[in-house]
C-alpha cells in the first residue's frame, strides 16, 4: 500500500484531479473570470514602425503610452462589437465572405452566410484590418449615437455656453473712415496714396479736408462698425488684416484693397464680446452633443475595460 502511495503515476493522477477541480470551479463561475485581451507584440512593433515612418522619430514614452491606450480602446471596441453581433452587418459580412474565399474548398458553391461564418470560425476576422476597422467604427458610432440623437435641455446648453464663452464670442469690431485711391484707374495707386498722406501731414489738413481728397470708388468713405470678416468681404483679406492692427486716431500708411489703396482712420475699436445664446443656439447645441458623446464614449470605454484582463507585452496588466 505504502509502495503504491509512492508511485509517481498516483501523484500525477492526484495533481491532474486537483487541476481539473480548480479549472472546473473557474469554469463554473465560482471564481471571478475576466476575458483576456492581449495586444500582440507584432502589432506593437508595427505601430512603432508606422510612427517612425510618419514622424521621422521614435515615439516618446508619453506618445508610446497614448498609442497603446488607443490600441486597447480599439481592441475593447472590437470585442464589444463582436459581442453585439455587429459582424452580422452587411459591410462586415461581405468582407468576411470575401476573405473566406481563400480557404473555402469550393467558394463558388458556398453561400455568403456560410463563407462569413467560416471566416469567423477560423478567426480570420481577428487579423483582418478592414473587418476590425468596420467593427471598431461601428461600435464607436453606436455608443456615441446614444447621445447624438438627443436634444440637449436648455439649462445644459446654457451651462455649456457659459463655460465656453470664449468659443462663442463676437470678434473685434472696428469703425473706420477711408480715403480711397482708385486702383482701377490709377495703376500707381500706392504712390498716389503716399503723396496724399504726405500732403495731409505737410499741410496739416483736418479730417474732413483730408476725406475730400479721396477718389470715388464703390466703397463707402465712412463705414459702420465692422468685423474683420466683414472688412475682408468688402475690401479683401490684406486690407482687413492691416486695419485690425491699427490703433484709433491718425491716418494710416497706404493699405491695399480690392479697390486700390487707402489711408484709413480708425475711430473706435470694440473688443471681442460674447454673442447672445439665441444667436448661436444651434452651434452650442451641436458642441454640447459632441462633448457629451465624447464623454459618454470615454465612460463606456472605462466600464468596458474593467470587464477584461488586458495584457500588453512589456507592461504590467
Amino acid at each position: 500500500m505504502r509502495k503504491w502511495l509512492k508511485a509517481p503515476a498516483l501523484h500525477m493522477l492526484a495533481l491532474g484531479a486537483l487541476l481539473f477541480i480548480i479549472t472546473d470551479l473557474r469554469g463554473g463561475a465560482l471564481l471571478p473570470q475576466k476575458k483576456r485581451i492581449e495586444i500582440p507584440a507584432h502589432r506593437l512593433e508595427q505601430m512603432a514602425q508606422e510612427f517612425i515612418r510618419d514622424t521621422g522619430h521614435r515615439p516618446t514614452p508619453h506618445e508610446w503610452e497614448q498609442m497603446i491606450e488607443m490600441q486597447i480602446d480599439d481592441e475593447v471596441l472590437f470585442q464589444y462589437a463582436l459581442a453585439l453581433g455587429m459582424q452580422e452587418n452587411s459591410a462586415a459580412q461581405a468582407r468576411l465572405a470575401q476573405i473566406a474565399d481563400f480557404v473555402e474548398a469550393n467558394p463558388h458553391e458556398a453561400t455568403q452566410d456560410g463563407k462569413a461564418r467560416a471566416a469567423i470560425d477560423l478567426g480570420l476576422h481577428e487579423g483582418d484590418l478592414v473587418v476590425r476597422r468596420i467593427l471598431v467604427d461601428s461600435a464607436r458610432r453606436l455608443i456615441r449615437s446614444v447621445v447624438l440623437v438627443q436634444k440637449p435641455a436648455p439649462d445644459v446648453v446654457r451651462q455649456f455656453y457659459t463655460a465656453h464663452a470664449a468659443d462663442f464670442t463676437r470678434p473685434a469690431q472696428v469703425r473706420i473712415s477711408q480715403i480711397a485711391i482708385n486702383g482701377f484707374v490709377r495703376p500707381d495707386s500706392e504712390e498716389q496714396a503716399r503723396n496724399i498722406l504726405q500732403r495731409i501731414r505737410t499741410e496739416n489738413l483736418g479730417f474732413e479736408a483730408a476725406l475730400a481728397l479721396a477718389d470715388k470708388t464703390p466703397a463707402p468713405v465712412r463705414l459702420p462698425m465692422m468685423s474683420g470678416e466683414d472688412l475682408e468681404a468688402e475690401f479683401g483679406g490684406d486690407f482687413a488684416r492691416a486695419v485690425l492692427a491699427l490703433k484709433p486716431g491718425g491716418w494710416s500708411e497706404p493699405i491695399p484693397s480690392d479697390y486700390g489703396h487707402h489711408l484709413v482712420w480708425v475711430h473706435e475699436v470694440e473688443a471681442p464680446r460674447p454673442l447672445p445664446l439665441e444667436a448661436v443656439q444651434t452651434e452650442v447645441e451641436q458642441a454640447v452633443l459632441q462633448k457629451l458623446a465624447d464623454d459618454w464614449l470615454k465612460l463606456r470605454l472605462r466600464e468596458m475595460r474593467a470587464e477584461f484582463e488586458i495584457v500588453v507585452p512589456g507592461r504590467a496588466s
Partner: protein
Amino acid sequence: MQSPQAVGLVSRLAATGALVLAALGFAIGANPPWEPSAKPPFEITEDRPRCKDYTPKRRALFGTTHLHTGLSFDASIRFVDYANGNNPRGAYLFAQGKQPISIPEPSGLQPKRRASCNDPATEPEGGGPSRTPCIDEPLDWGAVTDHSEHFGVMGFCKGLLGKDVSESLSMECRMINGFFYEPLRALNPALGKSMASNAFTQLTLTNDGAISKNTNLPVCNNNPELCAKAELEVWGEVQNAAEEAYDRSDECRFTSFVAYENTSTPLLNNWHRNVIFRNDRVVRTPVNAIDMAVVVNTDPTREPVDTLLAVVPNEPRVWPVPPGTKVNHPLPQPFWNKLEEDCTKGKNVTPGKASRCDFITIPHNSNLGGGGNLFPPMFLDPYNTADAKRHQQMEPLVEIYQDKGASECRYDPRFLAGTDTIDEYCAFEILDGKSLGSASGVGSGSGSSGPAAPDTWGERAYVRNVWKDGIQYAAQKTFEGINPFKMGVVSASDSHTGVMGWHPETDQWPGHLGIDDAYPMSEASSIQNSTGGPSVVWAEENTRDAIFEALKRKETYGTSGPRMKVRFFGGWGYPADACGKDFVDLGYKGGVPMGGDLPARTAKDGAPVFITSAVWDGNIKTKLQQIQVIKGWVDAKGKTHERVYTVAGDPGSPLNPQADLDAETCKAKPELGRERLCAVWKDPDFDPRQHAFYYVRVLEEPVCRYSTLWCRQWIGVDPLSSSCSSQLTALQNGTPAQKAKASQGAMCCSNQTTDTFLQPVIQERAWTSPIWYEPAASPLAQK
C-alpha cells in the same frame, strides 16, 4: 444572433445611457424666437433675421452647386466611405473649415482620421498628398448633390435601415461596398479600378441609361417597399445635414441648400441635372432619371427597359412633347413637370419652416452630353413654343466648368481648329473623351487612334454655341421669339470626395474620384480631370432666399478655381469714366447686371455700353492678364457669329502661355499683370437689328497646372523640362519602387500637342452670365 453576454452589455448600455441622459437633463426643446425682418428686394420664404452685413449693392458669395460624398453610389464604389465621415455632414463641415474630410488612400484603405485641421496630417503609404485634407479658405454657401437614383439602394447597403436587411447582401450592395477589391493584397492592384468601372456601368446603364420604361435596380424592383423606405432615410439625411449646416442667425456664416443630382445617362451620355431647392420645403421623394422615361414601366420585374427608340404617349406627364413623336432619348419634360407638380404646386412637399417649395435645375457637362453622333445633345431642340418657354423657365443656369473639363467652347491646338470657333483661348481643359464612359474612368481617353477632330463634336456640346443657337431661335421667331437657351453660368467641382469648395491648383490635389484617380496622372482617362471652381452669386446677404434669387436672375459667374471678384453691367448711357466712380451704383441704376436683358432701346440710344471690373484672388495672388467681352450675334441671314474683344489688360499668348511663366517658381513673371482691372466698353460693331449676347471672360496670368506641381513633387519628373520623357524612362527602367512611380505618373509628360490633351501651364479664368440684347420688343421674348 446575440449572445447572452451581448444582451447583458446592451441592457447595461441602455440603462446607463438612460441614467446619464436623465442626469444631464435632455428634453425636446422649442424653436428659438425669430426676430422681426426687414423687407428686402426679393421674395422672403423663410422667417429669419436679415443678415447684419446685408448690403443693397450685393456682395460676391462663393459657393458650390455640385458636390458628391460617400453617399453617392459612384463615390462608394471607389471606396469613398460614408461611414468614415465622407457624407453630407462631413462635406458641410469641411466647407466651413471646421473639419478635415477622409478620402481613401490609393490602396483603398481608409486614412487615419484626424479630428481637427490643427492636427498634423500624415502622408498615405507610398507618398502623395494628404488623404485628410482641409479647405484652404472657408466657403460661403453650398449644396451637396448626391446621385438620387440610388438613394434607396444606398440606404440599405450602408445600413441605414439596420443590419437585418437581407438585401444588404445583394449584388448591388456588393458592388457599392467594394467587396471585389482586396486592398493592398491584390495580385494586380489595377483590377480594383477596373472592377469599380464595371460596377459604375452596371449600376448606371441598367436604370439611368435607358430612354423608355426606365426602372430601378433589380434589387429594388424585387422589393420596392424596402427601397422606398431606404430612399426616404437617405433623403432625410441629406435634408438634416443641410439644416444643421445652415446658419439661421444674423451672423449668416454659411448657407446650405437641400439638393440632389438627376443622373440620366443614356448610352453613357451625360444628361445630368442638379436640382437645388430654395429652402427646407422640398419634394418628399426626389424626381430623377427614372422619371425621364418616355414611357412609364408599370411592371419592371417583367418589362425590359428600352434603350433605342420610343414613341411619346398621349399623356399629361410628357407635355408639351407632341404625342406620337419618335425619340431615341429620354425626356427632360416629365422630369420638369413632376418637379413642378410636386414642389411648386405643393402636391408632394415636406413640412418645414419655409412658406413654399421652389427649385431650379442646372445641367452640367454638355461637353460629355452627346450631339457628336446619332445621339442628340443634352440641349435638345424645343418641340414647340410651350416647350421653348419650358426650357427657359426650368433651366436658368448651366455649369460651364468643373472637374470633368470646360464646357464653354472648344479649340484644339493639335488641329489648329475649333468646334464652331476660332477663339484660341478655348484651348482650356478640353477633354478628349465625348461621353462619361471616358471621363469617369470607364474606358480609356482618346484611345490609340489619336485625338478626334473638333468638328466631330456636336456644336451644342459647348455652351457658347448653345447660346448662339438660342438667339438664332429668337431672331428667326421659330418659337414666337422665345430664346429657349437663355442660361446664366456657374462653375463647380463635381468632386466625389466631399471636398466642397476646395479647388487647389497645387501638388496637394488628391483626385476627385476616390481610388480611381488617387494618382491623377497615371492614365489618360483620369488625368484630364481638373480641380473645378466655385459658383459665385452677387447677393444682398448670405441666406437661402437671397442666393436662390440671385441664381434665378442669373447674377452669377463661375471660375476655374481662384476667387476673383467680377462685375459686369450693361446699359445705354454709362459714362466713359465710370471706373473712376462708384461704378457699382452706376451699373445697377443705369442698366442691368450679368444675367439680365438690356433695357429696351430708345431712339436716342446708340450702341450698348458695358462696365466690367475684376479683382484678383487676394489669397492666391496670381495677377490678372485681361478682361475679354465675348459677343455672339445673328446676322440678317440668320447665321450666327462670335467675336472676342480684349477690353482691359493685355492680350496674352493663348497657345503658348509658357512664354509668360517663370518655370522655376511655376508662377507668372512678376512684372506681368494687374491686381485689378476695369473697363467701360461700347460695342463698336453694334447693329440694332441683330439679336446678341455679351459675356465676360477674365484671364489670369499663366501658372502651372496642379498636375505639373504634382508630377514634380510626387513622381520626380518635370513636365516643363525638355528632358521630361528621359526622366520618366529612367524611372521605368529603375528599381521596383521607381517603376511604381513611373506608373503612377505615366502621363506626366503629356502636353497640349500630345495624343492626350493636357496643359502643363494654364490660365485660370472666370466666366460671367451673359447680358442679352433683343431688338424685337416681342411681348413673348421676355417671358
